[in-house]
């Protein structure tokens, strides 16, 4: 496979994952703004920080109103992480690697791009937002379904999956990072009502609010939530799950190519580091410090993969 094609696949799936993450963040933020309008501004600020686009936003706007932030996250071409920008980038990459995709995957991506460009031609009103977000979720399920159902399990698939999980791990880690102070264990056994709202926001951002209630026998506490998001391998957006997936797909590449690269060592190290920790040691070492280190190492791993498989010349 061409190095450029591997890179195109990796980025195509990073962007697809990002569009879903942005939509999910927006959904959680919008819900906060609706239910707790007094905190809306600070919630939107943290949504923008998590999406990594706050600096650019602040260059354009002075205030944080619902409609402004919504438009920024969904449609604004100045925001490289807006759903429209990210879908365009995903489709451009899909065109680049079209010969590596099945017809079903290509058509799903192309259909997604056409549907979303049409849907997001004009600003979205708060009334329309739930419908728009539902469409974004549905479209990404369409692409994912086509990928799982039709692609050969070879290096093409591995690069697609690695892109997905590097991006997803980054996204979950950012959510924890931005909200880490609400996850610190407090003296009281049960969180205040304010904490409860914040925790729900966090869980919603990773579509895990229902899973958590289903799976977790304990009460909702900061420690239980942090543990769930970092270590629970049943949760498809937890750091441990993402790292496990990345490591496994890298191992398949190692077998297929019969070559071990520096990125394999980095991935094993990252996985080993998570395994060496539990939620108690995380709080001992500092949640903020541990997560910052994870984000850095996950990015380094991404860059090493790009280098080892010659994405660019």
């Amino acid at each position, binding site marked *: *496979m*061409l*190095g*450029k094609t*591997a890179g195109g696949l990796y980025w195509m799936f990073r962007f697809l994952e990002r569009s879903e993450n942005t939509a999910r963040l927006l959904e959680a933020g919008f819900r906060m703004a609706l239910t707790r309008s007094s905190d809306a501004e600070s919630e939107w600020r943290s949504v923008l920080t998590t999406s990594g686009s706050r600096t650019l936003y602040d260059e354009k706007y002075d205030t944080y109103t619902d409609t402004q932030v919504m438009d920024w996250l969904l449609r604004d071409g100045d925001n490289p992480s807006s759903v429209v920008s990210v879908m365009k980038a995903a489709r*451009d990459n899909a*065109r*680049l690697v*079209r*010969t590596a995709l099945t*017809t079903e995957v*290509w*058509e799903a991506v*192309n*259909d997604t791009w*056409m549907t979303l460009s049409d849907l997001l031609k004009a600003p979205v009103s708060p009334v329309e937002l739930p419908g728009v977000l539902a469409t974004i979720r549905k479209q990404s399920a369409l692409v994912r379904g086509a990928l799982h159902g039709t692609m050969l399990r070879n*290096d093409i698939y591995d690069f697609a999956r690695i892109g997905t999980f590097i991006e997803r791990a980054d996204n979950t880690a950012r959510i924890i990072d931005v909200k880490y102070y609400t996850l610190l264990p407090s003296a009281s056994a049960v969180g205040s009502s304010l904490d409860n709202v914040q925790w729900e926001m966090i869980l919603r951002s990773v579509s895990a609010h229902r899973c958590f209630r289903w799976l977790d026998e304990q009460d909702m506490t900061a420690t239980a939530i942090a543990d769930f998001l970092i270590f629970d391998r049943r949760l498809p957006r937890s750091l441990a799950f993402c790292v496990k997936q990345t490591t496994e797909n890298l191992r398949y590449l190692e077998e297929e*190519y019969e*070559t071990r690269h520096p990125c394999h060592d980095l991935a094993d190290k990252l996985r080993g580091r998570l395994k060496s920790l539990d939620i108690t040691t995380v709080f001992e070492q500092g949640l903020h410090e541990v997560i910052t280190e994870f984000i850095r190492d996950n990015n380094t791993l991404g860059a090493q993969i790009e280098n080892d*498989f*010659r994405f*660019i*010349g």
Partner: protein
Amino acid sequence: MTNTPKAYDEMQRPDGSVTSPYTGYNAWFTAQDPARLESKSREAEAFFRRTGITFNVYGQSEAQERLIPFDLVPRILSHREWTKLSKGIDQRVRAINAFIWDIYNRQEILRAGRVPKHLIAHNEAFLPQMMGFTPPGNIYTHIVGTDIVRTGAGDFFVLEDNARTPSGVSYMLENRETMLQMFPELFSKIRVQPVSDYPKNLRRSLAASAPPACTGKPRVAVLTPGIHNSAYFEHSFLADQMGAELVEGHDLRVVDGRIAMRTTRGYRVIDVLYRRIDDDFLDPLSFNPDSMLGVPGIMDVYRAGGITIANAPGAGIADDKAIYSYMPEIVEFYTGEKAILRNVETHRCAEPEALKYVLDNLADLVVKEVHGSGGYGMLVGPAASKTEIAAFRKKLEANPASYIAQPTLSLSTVPIFVDRGLAPRHVDLRPFVLVSPDGVNITPGGLTRVALTEGSLVVNSSQGGGTKDTWVLED
């Protein structure tokens, strides 16, 4: 411009009867419910959009990707008409390859005075780097798109020989696919020669032209300028259909005297490069030094027999519009036969007498730039306003050698489907020709382009033209 009453319609005779190639189709068509055809037509558009069969238009920042409108009425040629056409095309591409070899080697045709020397020496398409070099199998034009127009029952003319990187073949293939999906019953009633072997033949033909350095099974790649190129869809389509890699210049480099592509497992050698970029961008070391699209050093590898480039650099010398006017002489010189296909009468504005004639008759002529392509920079006299003609006159007088002029041909018409039924529109035809050491292979049919506006003679997709499926009937 209004429809010239004497335009030859390929389906309907002046007395209203249907010509023989269309008899079967007409019987089917008259039995159809127009509403069903209407919905099929919309279906086809949705299909093209969903699969991304689009082209990019330069200079349109919004809506960069457009569809080429597809018309569901096929253009039909009889077996006999096609046999004559394909013989003529075969003869012509053989002559073209012999001509190009001669120009870059012995130049006998120049010495014989059949083609003026200055047309070559001052030609931008002439590449001195190709002098004294013979590409594998003596093939210069692996892929040719010969543009044909028709003015009467037996009157076919060659309008252009596209010997560089002719495009449109993906539309030929997708148009047939679309027709097969929409109207499968038609193909069981009427026996149409298939076109779907083209990608396989293209691959075989390219592989047969592998360079001396190739030892194993030839590895073929398609070189594209990238996703923003107007024909990118076609590049990826052909690579996909051939099972070849689709590469860009920055994927390639010279490794040990060969061209190699950067893969996830290191560099892998390529034997044959089907390039869809112009000569000028091919090698920044030999040609345009600013080119980011090509591969530095590829010309040295090429001349040393390390890679086959299709079409060969410098092949454009044969499809220049000034050279075109000498094609009848060229065919005769190299084949010893009269040209089977006629040329359109061409006035070379470089010649004072011709220029005078052209200036006196601008309103009736089509004037084209010698190096231009795709309908840009041309004047269609009968369709132009007085102001446009006056402006063009100035350009022409300032630089007459850059232009040729031809009579406005009354292009044949084929009906398109409109809301009230069928309506005649002007068409042309681009058959696709593959040339390899094993011989010449012409896919039966080709791409029919159609001017969708009533009376219009401009069929270019960049200027509102559409396409049709083209049928050659079985004997």
